[in-house]
Every structure is written in structure tokens, then in C-alpha cells.
């Protein structure tokens, strides 16, 4: 910790930075209003797949960067799970050195264009900004600025490929190509390893591809990052399920010396309500996969999707928001959220809830589904819901929803998307009986090194956390890469 503070201090006292800091009085900086993110018109975007946030212009970015007072002890950094040197990249933007800003971001975050878009900033870096905690003012728009710098770099065509150490011919395997796997692969390639990423699906990217929709995170942005990893020498094998297509033993026999498991929390949960298996009722994974991964809404593609008129989405997380906004884009007349607590407890990002409202999504908060009914063809046509009220806080600290007796009523629906959470993917634990897992099926790791109970196996992301965020998964991947590097170096020394 000492070291980091020393380092940050030294960075802050560099001449260019001191100069930028002095170029404007702190008072003047603090008087500026937070820049609004330009957005596509709700009427346009709710019937198309265009990205909702259109991104800051260079002018807007510089103005917003000026708000940051470059605090001597920047609390914002403590809110970022990967510890981005936030004031440094922001001051680079203020100095109009946009490529330099991107470089700072990439020191600690391999996918800034992704995180700038999907991080729950209001709960992380921006929650710890001086403006939030000391001034009770809107925080510096760290996420917007991160996205700006990353997009600028990509559009400039001068994307820097990180330096890699000399190729050492040691084979390592990364299982799963979500943010955890991609982050681990990037760092391992930097250390000089021969890295292969194995992915069960036909596309690279995990949830970034099959889950989060185009209108929030265009696939093209993820693909650029994957291309960069390729340029760094990372190999990708799609349609390869470790534990099925080949076992760990097989891979060891092929010379892989250590493994990173980032297999995610891909298993959908259902509520076991009566009638839940009727046609027209999907898990959010199926619904989003059909639309995002399989392109079902595009008539040129073969996969079908049911695009209902009266769509109810059960849940209040990001996945629920993505599903309900997708339903609207597929032409739903009514697209409703049915959530058993109130808006305050919603786990979804504040921005997503705001965007959903602008797009005409109906919110039935404090309602819970009880049962589904179907027509003669087995297609859902109505559901029974019950009103809820909030009681005392439960173990999660959120107020517990309590059913109100006698408040049940019917809602007409023709499509229902159940979005009440996911469980850890059991494929890897099932293929390794000696691997230590928790009662919930998450893999147990050493929190410093991300090493599992099997020495050559490391793990991170949702398979360890049971459902978290893109940036936490990436942080795990990077930590694990460091742990693996140490493990291999020690093994070599011992021999």
C-alpha cells in the first residue's frame, strides 16, 4: 500500500501534471456542471439496435476532465476494482493527450471500452469520488471519460498492442472466453506464455457477446479487443468444451502446464412456479442468446425467436433490463418488468433503469409471479401476480419483500422472460471431482493468487464469485495470471 501511495504521489508531481492542475483554479473546476452523455432518441433507439449512449465529443471530454481536481489522495481509485490511475488518465484527457490517456487505462484494464460502457460506475469509482463523498455533488464522469479515451484510440487506428516478453514456449490454457478469461489471457501473453483460450460456444466473449445486447455494448467493440489479443499471440479454440471435448488429463498430455478457469455463472435459475415450462416462457439466457448470439431477429439468420406483444420480464437486475428492452426492440406493445422489491433495491445499473423508462418500459415493482396459464396450444396467455410490501432488511441488507394476502390478480401476457439469477456453470467442477467447491457450486480459491485446491488450476470471475461484474471478473483474471506466472516460475526453479 505504502508503495502505491508513493507511486501515485510521484506520478502526480510530474511537471506536465502540475502544470495542468495549475491551469485552472479548483473553485472554477468545482463550479462546472457534470457533462450529460449524449443519447440516441428513445423513439429511434427503441425500434432499432443502435447504441443508446453515443459518446462524448472531444470538447465535452476535455470540459468534464477539467472538473477533476486531481486530489492529492484520490479516493476514486479505491472504488475501482482494478485500481486504474484515474486522475492521471483524466488529466491526460484535459491535456488533450487522448492516446496517452488510453495508455494509462490499459496499464491496468485490458478492456476500457467495455468497462467504460458497462461498469456500475455509480457504485464503484464514481461512488468514491471527492465530489460524491465530500461535496455532495455529481461525481466526475469517470466512466464516460474512460469510454471516450478508449473509443478515441480505437477510432484513431493507432491502437497500441501491449509489449510482450520474449516467447517462452510454455503452454497455458484458459477455459472460457468471458472477461475473466480474456483478462487472464492478455496478461499471460504479456509474460511471454503460449496461451490458448478454449471456448464452448462458437463465439469468443462470454456474456459480453451472448448476454449484453448490441444497444449497450456493440459486438464490434469486443471483437477489436479480441483481435488485439490475437496480435499478442493468444490462440482461440471455439466449440471446445473442456471436460467434454477433452479432459484436463488430455490437455496436460498435450503439454499444458497450468489452467485458468473462467467458465462463468451460465446456468439459468427458474422459480418453479406452476406453469413455468409453458411455451413462450424463457430464461433470460435463452432469450438474449437467441437474439444476441444467434441473431434471431434478423430474417437472414435461421434461428427463430418468439417476439411477443405482451412481454413480462421477471427480475430487477441488468439481465432483466436487457431482456425487457430487447423485447421492446422486437416490437412488444407492452414490455413490463415484474420485480418483487422496490426500485431502490433494484440491482440493475441506475442508467439502465433510466433508459428503460425513457423507452416506455412499464415497471410493476413490488409484484411477484405466482402461476402461469396457457391456451390450448400450451402457449402462455396469462399470469397470476401478487402484490408485495417491504419488511425488515434481510441478510443481503435489502428490505425483505412480504406478500400481501388477497392481492392477487391476473395479467395478460404472451411472452415471459424469467430473469431471477444464474448459478455457477457445473461443467468444470463435475469433470474434476477432487476440486474444492462451495455448497453453491462456486470454486474455492486463494484470494491472493486465485489458486484452487488443485495446484495447477486457477480460477476467477463468476465461477468463483457466483455472479458479479465485468470489471471484477477481469480483476480476477489478472490476479490469476500473476499467480500462474509465480507458480510456473517456482516450478521451473524447483527443477
Amino acid at each position, binding site marked *: 500500500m505504502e508503495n502505491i501511495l508513493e507511486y501515485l504521489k510521484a506520478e502526480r508531481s510530474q511537471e506536465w501534471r502540475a502544470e495542468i492542475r495549475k491551469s485552472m483554479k479548483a473553485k472554477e473546476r468545482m463550479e462546472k456542471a457534470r457533462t450529460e452523455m449524449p443519447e440516441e432518441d428513445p423513439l429511434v433507439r427503441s425500434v432499432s439496435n443502435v447504441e443508446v449512449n453515443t459518446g462524448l465529443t472531444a470538447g465535452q471530454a476535455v470540459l468534464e476532465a477539467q472538473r477533476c481536481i486531481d486530489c492529492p489522495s484520490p479516493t476514486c481509485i479505491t472504488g475501482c476494482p482494478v485500481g486504474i490511475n484515474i486522475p492521471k488518465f483524466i488529466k491526460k484527457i484535459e491535456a488533450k493527450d487522448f492516446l496517452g490517456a488510453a495508455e494509462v487505462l490499459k496499464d491496468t484494464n485490458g478492456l476500457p471500452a467495455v468497462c467504460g460502457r458497462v461498469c456500475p460506475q455509480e457504485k464503484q469509482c464514481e461512488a468514491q469520488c471527492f465530489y460524491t463523498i465530500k461535496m455532495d455533488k455529481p461525481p466526475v464522469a469517470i466512466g464516460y471519460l474512460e469510454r471516450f479515451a478508449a473509443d478515441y484510440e480505437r477510432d484513431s487506428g493507432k491502437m497500441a498492442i501491449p509489449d510482450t516478453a520474449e516467447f517462452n514456449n510454455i503452454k497455458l490454457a484458459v477455459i472460457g472466453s468471458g472477461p475473466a478469461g480474456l483478462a487472464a489471457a492478455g496478461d499471460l501473453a504479456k509474460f511471454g506464455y503460449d496461451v490458448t483460450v478454449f471456448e*464452448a*460456444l*462458437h463465439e469468443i466473449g462470454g456474456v459480453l457477446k451472448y448476454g449484453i445486447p448490441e444497444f449497450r455494448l456493440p459486438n464490434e467493440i469486443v471483437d477489436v479487443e479480441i483481435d488485439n489479443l490475437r496480435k499478442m499471440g493468444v490462440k482461440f479454440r*471455439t*466449440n*471446445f*468444451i473442456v471436460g*467434454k*471435448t*477433452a*479432459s484436463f488429463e*488430455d490437455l496436460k498430455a498435450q503439454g499444458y502446464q497450468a489452467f485458468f478457469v473462467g467458465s462463468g455463472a*451460465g*446456468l*439459468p435459475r*427458474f422459480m*418453479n412456479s406452476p406453469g*413455468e*415450462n*409453458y*411455451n*413462450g416462457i*424463457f*430464461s433470460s*439466457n*435463452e432469450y438474449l*442468446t*437467441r437474439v444476441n448470439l*444467434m*441473431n434471431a431477429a434478423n430474417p*437472414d*439468420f*435461421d*434461428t*427463430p425467436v*418468439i417476439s411477443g406483444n405482451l412481454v413480462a420480464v421477471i427480475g430487477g437486475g441488468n439481465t432483466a433490463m436487457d431482456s425487457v428492452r430487447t423485447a421492446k426492440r422486437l416490437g412488444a406493445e407492452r414490455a413490463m418488468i415484474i420485480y418483487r422489491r422496490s426500485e431502490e433495491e433494484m440491482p440493475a445499473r441506475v442508467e439502465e433503469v433510466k433508459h428503460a423508462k425513457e423507452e416506455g418500459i412499464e415497471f410493476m415493482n413490488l409484484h411477484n409471479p405466482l402461476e402461469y396459464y*396457457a391456451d390450448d*396450444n*400450451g*402457449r402462455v396467455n396469462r399470469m397470476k401476480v401478487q402484490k408485495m410490501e417491504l419488511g425488515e432488511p434481510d441478510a443481503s441488507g435489502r428490505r425483505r419483500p412480504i406478500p400481501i394476502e388477497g392481492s392477487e390478480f391476473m395479467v395478460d401476457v404472451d411472452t415471459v422472460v424469467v430473469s431471477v439469477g444464474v448459478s455457477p*456453470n*457445473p*461443467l468444470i467442477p463435475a469433470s474434476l471431482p477432487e476440486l474444492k467447491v462451495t455448497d453453491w457450486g462456486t470454486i474455492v480459491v486463494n484470494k491472493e493468487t486465485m489458486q484452487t485446491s488443485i495446484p495447477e488450476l486457477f480460477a476467477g470471475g463468476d465461477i468463483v464469485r457466483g455472479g458479479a461484474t465485468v470489471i471484477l471478473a477481469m480483476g480476477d483474471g489478472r490476479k490469476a495470471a500473476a499467480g500462474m506466472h509465480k507458480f510456473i516460475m517456482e516450478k521451473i526453479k524447483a527443477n
Partner: protein
Amino acid sequence: MSKILEKEFFSENVVRLVLDAPEIARTRKPGHFVIVKIDKQGERIPLTIATSDPDKGTVTLVIQKVGVTSAKLAAMQVGDEIMDVVGPLGKATHIQKTGTVLCAGGGVGVAPLLPIVEGFKKAGNRVITVLAARTKDLVILEEQMRAFSDEVIIMTDDGSYGKKGLVTAGMEEVIQREKVDLSVVIGPAIMMKFAALTTKKYNIKTYASLNTIMVDGTGMCGACRITVCGKTRFVCVDGPEFDAHQVDFDLMLSRLGAYREQEQEAYQKYLETVEIAG
């Protein structure tokens, strides 16, 4: 990418494809399936691995044309490449020596039944196979089934070939004639439902291999879910074989029809484009 190495028509609507897929060939066991996606625009469909040759690194699929994707596959040529093939998926069949095994297949179920018939025969069982179809032209894989069965009984709805009657009539004939230790049924949900009711009457342990609609085939989406013994199960990871006496076939039947309109429309469109192309 998987290259098509061999292709053979068993009948107008049934084709055998041998694919280059060395990794899958090495780990595959009877009962396993693959998910195939032909090209960028393609959908992912499940197909049972009929046989495999680990030395040559090949897997064999037997495909019956029922809609767009199966028809496109049947139209592919030796040397063509299938973009995505992933597997082996599902749980392998519990093949053991039990005595007499009664296998019954109908419609789309006949192809996936083939490796199971072969497996039970090779494990030293007496295997009796009942193949059911609406009419003579729709009877498929008869010769291949005969190679691994002690007896093959053909049933047609209209009596144009074999015996007249439903699959259940053929099964009852065998059950009344001799002791059956185990039964395996694969076919349209309605057929499996009645086949299961038949064996239940005689208390014969019965497995049904369920061919639900799938997307990923790895337990990630729940498209393949069915109700077994009152509980939701995922066919792709918990199955595809289940105790037939516990499966809610009515629900499965209705779930299979979820995309019928879209499928038929797409198939019509496909057939038209094929006709135009000549």
C-alpha cells in the same frame, strides 16, 4: 470447421454424413450428441453421433430431413465444411448386459436409436427392434438396424409394409411373447408417450431419449427443459435419456411445437429458393 468426408443417402430423406472431427471422435460414447451450425447464419441443431472412428478421427451422423437445417445439411457435398461442430454432449447411454432389450423407434427418433441398438447388441444383449412409420416410403434405416438386431419388426399405420398398426402394437406382440428386461424408445413425443404407457403396464424399465429443441446444448439456456417426476430437468445435460415412466410427454409435445409456424414458413421459403436455384 469440420469437413464432410463421406456422404450416402439411405433414402430420399435420410442421409449419412461422415465428418472430420478428431477430438470428438476420441471421447465420444454411444448416446452422445453434437450441436451443429452450418454457417454464419445457421441455427444450432442437435444430432446424435451414430458411430465414430477414433483412429480415423471421424464421426458419423444420420440425418433425417424435417426442416431448413436438416435439409441444408442433406444438400451439402463431400469436401464441404460445416462451420461449427461441438461435442460430445449429453450423458452417454447406460449400456449394459441385461438380457432382452426392446428398442422402438419412429419418425425422427430412428436415427438416434441406431447407435443405441448397436451398443446393446455389442454388449451381448438380445435386441429386438420395432420400427414404426406412417407408410412404406417413410421406413428408414431398416438394413442398418437389422445388422445389430436379433429381430426387426416393421409397423406401418396403413399396412403398406410390415404389419399394420402403431408402434405399441409391435411392442405388445414382443412383450406378450417373451420376457423383456429393458426397453428404449425414441420418436415423436406422442409415440414415446404411448410406448411408455405400454411398457408401464408390464412393469418394464423404459428409457426414452428426448429430442427437445435446443440452443447451446451445455445447460446454459433452458430451451430444452422438460418436467420429469414433477421437476424441471435440462435434456442437454441431465439427459437426453430419462426414465420414460416419469416424463411429462404432454408438456414435451407442446414445447416441441413452440416454433412450428416459424419453422414451416422458413422451410417453405427454403424449398422455394432451392427450386428456383434448380
